[in-house]
C-alpha cells in the first residue's frame, strides 16, 4: 500500500470493474485498499472514467463513513460505540484507549502509528465491548486488552 496517487494503478482498478453495473462503491473500496484513502485526484479521474459529474463522485465519497480523505495510520483501530458495547462500559474503555494514545475520535498519532475510529456495531455484541484492529475482530475487551493493543500497534 502506497499513499501516492498513481493513475495507472487507478486505471487498472477501474478496468477490473468494467462489467459491473453501478461500480462506484467497489471501485472506491479498491482505491482505498490500494492507497489507504481516497486521494483528491481520484475524484476528477473517476468522474471522467465513469462519465458522471465530479459533484456526484464527491457526494458519494463524503456520504459514506468508510471513505477516508486523508491517509490513516499504519494501524487502524475501530472501537465499537453502539449500545451493546455501551452496556459493558465500552465508552470508558474507549476513553482510556484514546487517552493512552492522546487521540480524539478519528485522529492519528503524530508518528503515524495508529488511527482510532468509532464504529457502530461489529456484530460481536454478545462478547462486548469489542473492536477491530486492522480488520481483525477483538472482543471481551478489558484493561489488559489496552496493553495488548498498545503492544500490537508498536510493532
Amino acid at each position, binding site marked *: 500500500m502506497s499513499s501516492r496517487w498513481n493513475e495507472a494503478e487507478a486505471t487498472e482498478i477501474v478496468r477490473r470493474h468494467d462489467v459491473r453495473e453501478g461500480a462506484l462503491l467497489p471501485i472506491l473500496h479498491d482505491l482505498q485498499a490500494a492507497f489507504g484513502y481516497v486521494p483528491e485526484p481520484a475524484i476528477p479521474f473517476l468522474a471522467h472514467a465513469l462519465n458522471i459529474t465530479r459533484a456526484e463522485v464527491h457526494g458519494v465519497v463524503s456520504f459514506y463513513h468508510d471513505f477516508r480523505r486523508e491517509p490513516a495510520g499504519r494501524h487502524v483501530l475501530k472501537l465499537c460505540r453502539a*449500545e*451493546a458495547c*455501551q*452496556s459493558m462500559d465500552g465508552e470508558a474503555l474507549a476513553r482510556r484507549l484514546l487517552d493512552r494514545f492522546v487521540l480524539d475520535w478519528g485522529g492519528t498519532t503524530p508518528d503515524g502509528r495508529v488511527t482510532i475510529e468509532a464504529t*457502530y456495531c461489529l456484530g460481536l455484541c*454478545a*462478547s462486548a465491548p469489542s473492536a477491530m484492529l486492522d480488520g481483525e*475482530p*477483538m472482543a471481551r475487551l478489558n484493561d489488559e486488552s489496552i496493553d495488548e493493543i498498545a503492544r500490537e500497534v508498536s510493532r
Partner: protein
Amino acid sequence: MTTRFFVPRDAAARAVGADKVAIALREEAGRRGIEIEIVRTGSRGLFWLEPMVEVETPAGRIAFGPVAARDVPGLLAGGLPIGLRHPLCLGRPEDIPFLKRQTRITFARCGVVDPLSLADWRAQGGGRGLDRARSLGPAKTLAEVTRSGLRGRGGAGFPTGIKWQTVADASADRKYIVCNADEGDSGTFADRMLLEGDPFALIEGMAIAGFAVGAAKGFVYIRSEYPDAIRIFGRAVHLAEGDGLLGAGAGFDIEVRVGAGAYVCGEETALLESIEGRRGQVRAKPPLPAHRGLFGRPTIINNLVSLTTVPWILAEGAEAYASFGMGRSRGTMPIQLAGNIRQGGLFEAAFGVTLGELVDEIGGGTRSGRPVRAVQVGGPLGAYFPRALFDTPFDYEAFTARDGLIGHGGIVVFDDTVDMARQARFAMEFCAIESCGKCTPCRIGSTRGVETIDKIIRGERSAANLELVEDLCQTMKFGSLCALGGFTPYPVMSAIRHFPEDFLRSPVNVAAQ
C-alpha cells in the same frame, strides 16, 4: 485413527482467541503424536462459551469451553478420548440447556458443518429445498412461502410471500433478488453468523427466490464491518459456481457488494441506491422496489434470515414451519441476546417466548451480576423495556402493542448502572450521525434532540426541556420519510416514559453526583 476436532471460525470466536486455540491444538497434537484433523466451523452461538471446541467421539461430539490456548496442553494431557471429567467439559452440545431449549430451523447447520464444504452441506439436508421447488414449479413454490406465514426478519415483518407474488406478477426484461445483509442494528449478529457458518443456505434461498419469480441475478449487500463474512461468503459463491449450484446451468448468479459504513443503507431503497453507485439516500415510495427496484427493475429485497429460512420451508413444507409460533407470527425467530448478559448468544425459538424468560432464564441475567434495569429490543430504533414489561411475548403484534418492535431480533441488556437519559441522548445522536439528510425532522430534529437532552442531563429546566423533546419526537415520528427519523422516538420516548427518574434532574443533584 484420526480424531476430528471442531473449532469455530466465526468472527466472535476468533475475537476471543479461536485461531490461537486451533494453532495450539495442532502443535500440541503434533508434540504428542496424536493424529487429529481440525475442522473450522461456524459458531453454535453460545458466545459466553467461545472458543468452544468440539471433539468427535463414538458417542457423538463432546464440547469443551471456553478454551484458551493455554488450556490445550491440559486438554490433551491424558491422550484421547479427553476425559469427560475435565473441568472445561460441557458434555454433548445438544444437551447444553441453552441449545436444548431452541428450535433450530434456520440455524440447524450453523456451528455444525464446515461452512465451505458442499459435501457437508448436502449431507445435512442442503439443496433439498431447491430440488423440491424445481419439482413443484414456480407458482407452487411461491404458494409454499406464502402459506408458511414467513414474515420479513429485517424489521418490518412484511409477509414474504406477498412481496414475492408482486415481483412474480410484474413483467420486465430482468428481475433481481437482493439480500439485505447490512445488519446495522446493535445487538444483532444472526446474518453474520449465517454468512460465516452456513453460506450455502443463503445461496439456496436466493436461488429458490429467483426460480419462484423469474429472476436470474442476485446481489448480496454485506456491511463492511463484517470482513470475515465477506471473505467466507465470497468463497462460498465461488465454490457454488464451480459446483453448478450457481451459474449458467443453474440459471442464477450472485454478486457480492460491500457497504461502506452507512447505517441507513440497511433501509431497502437506500441499499438499492448504494448498489447502483450512489449516496445511500432513501427513495420515496411508491414505486415499491417490487415494482421498480434495482436499476428500475422489479426486485425482491429481503433480509438474509428471511431468505435463509426459505430452503427449510420448501424442504419440510409450509405447514411444518407454520406449526411453530403464535398469532400472526409464524415459525421461529433467531433471537440475539447481547450486551450485559451472562449467557449471550443466538437463541432460535418459536415466537411466543417472553422477554423475561429470554433475559432472566435463558440469558441468566447480567454479566456484571447486578440487577437488570432496562433492555433495548430491536436495535437502535427499538424501545427500551423495563422489568415491568418482561411478560411481553416475542411476537410482532405484542411488541407493537407496547410501543416497541422486535426488529431484527436483537436484545441488549443493561444493568442498574445505566443512565437512561444518556441512552436517550445516544438514540438522537445516532440518528444525527446516520441520517441520510433528506428530511428536516430527521436531520435537524435529531441534532436539536441531542442539545436538548444535554440540557436535561445538566439539570437545566428539566420539565420544560422534556416537553420540548416530546414535541421533537412527534415531529420526527410524523415528518420523516423512513424509520430512521420515524422510529428514533421509540428509544427516546420509552426511556422517558419508563425511567422518568433519570430525566428529572435538578442542578443540585447533578452537582452532587
